[in-house]
């Protein structure tokens, strides 16, 4: 048990050590300062020239959003087209069929919005062409979209009053060329050298040692898994995601993948500090996020190492913890650690099956997605946190009777309204979606019997988890849910769209509005935002808004299940 705990400690420490210099580097890249990847400039200029883009044209926040939404629309159409015709397109050695329209809609949206909810299984649901041109492609560009939006906010938070917030295409393309592409290349090669396939050949038929005939699924896995993690996408090549022994062959690859998915969200916080030259602010944000992360992590590791009480009753040796849905090469601790990093960060890849975790671990996983801002997704995690920050500044300002200001800019009614709409949208989508679905199920349990794999409280948790995952753009699931049906495909598809683009539009709009305002130098009357006291305030806002809103629903699911088991 000790070396399992040492293992997760080492993974976290390594992530932190790598994220700091990466944050520094990212700040330089996005400020346009000299950095060690400047040799790529001709490549970037080539990309801009071929696309007919002037990457030096300064954009307002509205222009940024129009550019972002337009190109996302193009990607959506491309994805729909390929997915619904993949059966008759090339690179399909296993002869997988084209997708039905509702499944193609859900899949296209899901990867477009960086969620990667998967209502299909990779081995039989996608051709290699779709794996590369739809899945891998959207994993790159959706992550870069989130990062670019965060950089717009960085730019807007500077002290000057301006409308000009840089160029969207510049931020977007540089996120790819300077970060996601080279990073993925390194991760993909590490995986390939540890046994992850990277081939265009179809399944291999073979006869096992004891004489059974099996077929082993292969494919261009390594390239896809690298960006799946680094871009906090999470959608796996295989059905079992990173629990699959070819997608995640050993403890080392598990550490590499786990570091890859945490490093950019963490580095973006540091990048904010370096970019604005407000290191104490970045430290406050990092501190709040880390406290939230550890509070969710500790009980999960504890309960998973303790094992399932229902199995303890059998009198077997459960010394390695709860192992249903877990792999022996990772063990209970690294599986628990992975599950929390993947739910606080909107990555949503899994190396063990969340449906089989202990009830309170399921609760912490859901809370990670319900807050959705402890590190958070590529770029968007910081955007979510920014909305909480605005609310905290406003409330704290009212409490002590000072004008609410953030970084020398006044927070007024308009910004507050946007921040509140963005943060309340999340519980609304999750709770309304779950309530509606539970109502449908309760009204006709025989017709919808295929939805739930488990009875009772746990069945309710499966539905709640799915909507939480969709609204957090996370993509993991309690996978026992029979979710490839028109109801689930369409309802979660709609939730995905709303919960991706509004939380990007809102914070960018707030930042854009703040950028225009006059800078008021900090004085004795200013409430400083970079102190531990203010950190506590932000945490309180997160707990009140994000966590408490969900308490009744959580009580019906995981909490009730916990008390039925223990």
């Amino acid at each position, binding site marked *: 048990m000790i070396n399992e705990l040492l293992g997760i400690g080492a993974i976290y420490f390594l992530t932190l050590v790598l994220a700091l210099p990466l944050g520094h580097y990212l700040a330089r890249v996005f400020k346009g300062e000299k950095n060690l990847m400047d040799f790529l400039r001709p490549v970037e200029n080539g*990309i801009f020239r*071929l*696309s*007919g883009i002037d990457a030096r044209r300064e954009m307002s926040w509205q222009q940024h959003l*129009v550019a972002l*939404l*337009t*190109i996302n629309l*193009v990607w959506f159409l491309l994805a729909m087209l390929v997915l619904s015709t993949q059966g008759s397109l090339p690179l399909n050695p296993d002869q997988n069929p084209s997708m039905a329209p509702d499944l193609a809609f859900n899949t296209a949206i899901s990867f477009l919005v960086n969620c990667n909810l998967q209502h299909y*299984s990779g*081995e*039989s649901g996608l051709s290699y062409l779709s794996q*590369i*041109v739809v899945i891998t*492609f959207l994993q790159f560009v959706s992550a870069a979209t989130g990062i670019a939006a965060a950089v717009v906010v960085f730019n807007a938070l500077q002290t000057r009053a301006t409308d000009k917030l840089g160029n969207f295409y510049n931020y977007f*393309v540089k996120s790819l060329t300077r970060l996601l*592409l080279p990073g993925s290349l390194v991760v*993909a*090669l590490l995986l*390939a050298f540890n*046994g992850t396939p*990277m*081939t265009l050949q179809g*399944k*291999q038929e*073979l*006869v096992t*040692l*004891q004489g*059974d005939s099996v077929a*082993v699924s*292969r494919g*261009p896995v390594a390239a896809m898994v690298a960006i799946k993690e680094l871009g906090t996408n999470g959608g796996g090549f295989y059905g*079992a995601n990173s*629990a*699959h022994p070819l997608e995640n*062959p050993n403890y080392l690859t598990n550490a590499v993948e786990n570091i890859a998915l945490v490093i950019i969200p963490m580095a973006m916080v540091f990048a904010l500090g370096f970019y604005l030259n407000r290191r104490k602010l970045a430290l406050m944000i990092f501190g709040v996020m880390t406290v939230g992360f550890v509070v969710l992590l500790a009980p999960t590791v504890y309960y998973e190492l303790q094992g399932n009480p229902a*199995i303890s009753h*059998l009198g*077997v*040796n459960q*010394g390695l913890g*709860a192992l*249903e*849905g877990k*792999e*022996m*090469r*990772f063990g209970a601790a*690294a599986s628990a650690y992975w599950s929390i990093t993947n739910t606080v960060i909107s990555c949503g890849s899994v*190396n063990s*099956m969340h*449906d*089989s975790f*202990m009830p309170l671990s399921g609760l912490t996983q859901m809370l990670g997605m319900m807050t959705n801002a402890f590190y958070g997704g590529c770029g968007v995690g910081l955007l979510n946190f920014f909305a909480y920050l605005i609310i905290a500044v406003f409330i704290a300002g009212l409490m002590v009777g000072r004008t609410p200001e953030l970084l020398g800019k006044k927070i007024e009614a308009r910004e507050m309204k946007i921040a509140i709409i963005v943060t309340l949208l999340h519980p609304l989508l999750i709770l309304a979606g779950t309530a509606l679905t539970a109502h449908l199920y309760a009204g006709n349990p025989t017709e919808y019997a295929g939805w739930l*794999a488990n009875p*009772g409280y746990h069945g309710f948790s499966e539905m709640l988890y799915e909507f939480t995952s969709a609204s957090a753009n996370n993509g993991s699931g309690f*996978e*026992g849910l029979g979710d490839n049906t028109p109801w689930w495909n369409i309802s979660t598809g709609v939730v995905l769209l709303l919960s991706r683009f509004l939380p990007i539009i809102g914070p960018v709009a707030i930042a854009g509005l703040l950028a225009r305002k006059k800078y008021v130098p900090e004085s004795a009357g200013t409430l400083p935002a970079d102190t531990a006291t203010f950190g506590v305030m932000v945490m309180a806002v997160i707990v009140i808004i994000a966590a408490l809103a969900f308490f009744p629903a959580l009580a019906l699911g995981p909490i009730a299940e916990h008390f039925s*088991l223990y």
Partner: protein
Amino acid sequence: MTNDLRFKEMKQHLLPAFRLTLVLLVVCCLIYPALVWAGAQLAPNGGQGETISHRGRVVGYDNVGQKFTRPEYFWSRPSAVDYNSAGSAGSNKGPSNPDYQATVQARLDTFLLQNPGVPKAQVPAELITASGSGLDPHLSPAGAAVQVARVARARQLDATKVQALVAQHTQHSLLGPDRVNVLRLNVALDQLSGR
């Protein structure tokens, strides 16, 4: 900016967005995978995944678990997909599910029946719970140890010899859990018995 103007602006962005998408398709979907593929050619087995051969034929993948049902082989963990490696999945059974608890109880009873003399307290949980992928290639050292007596009996081998083989195939690591690759262990067993 009125809505009308914004729509116009969108149209202005449409052509560059389209062209940029085409360029990035080449970069992300052609150049990037090609680079990874080229690098993977230098990896063991050229990016096809590592395989294990026995008596001149490929009997499986190093990392993909297999089903063993005969008493003379070490058995892998229960699998939700019955080790059909054309797919992969866990059972997704919740911890409180009564059907699941019955399944686990039945697995334990079967195991005890087929491994007479083994006390319940020595059976590790992994042998009665399904893995995440359904293709878990490993057991813990305890999961192999508890099967030694049965395997030795079925092969008419000395139990200490089988035990030594398990020890030899146990991978220790500083950070993660210790484990035994079931397929490798069974291949070594066949070699020991001269099959």
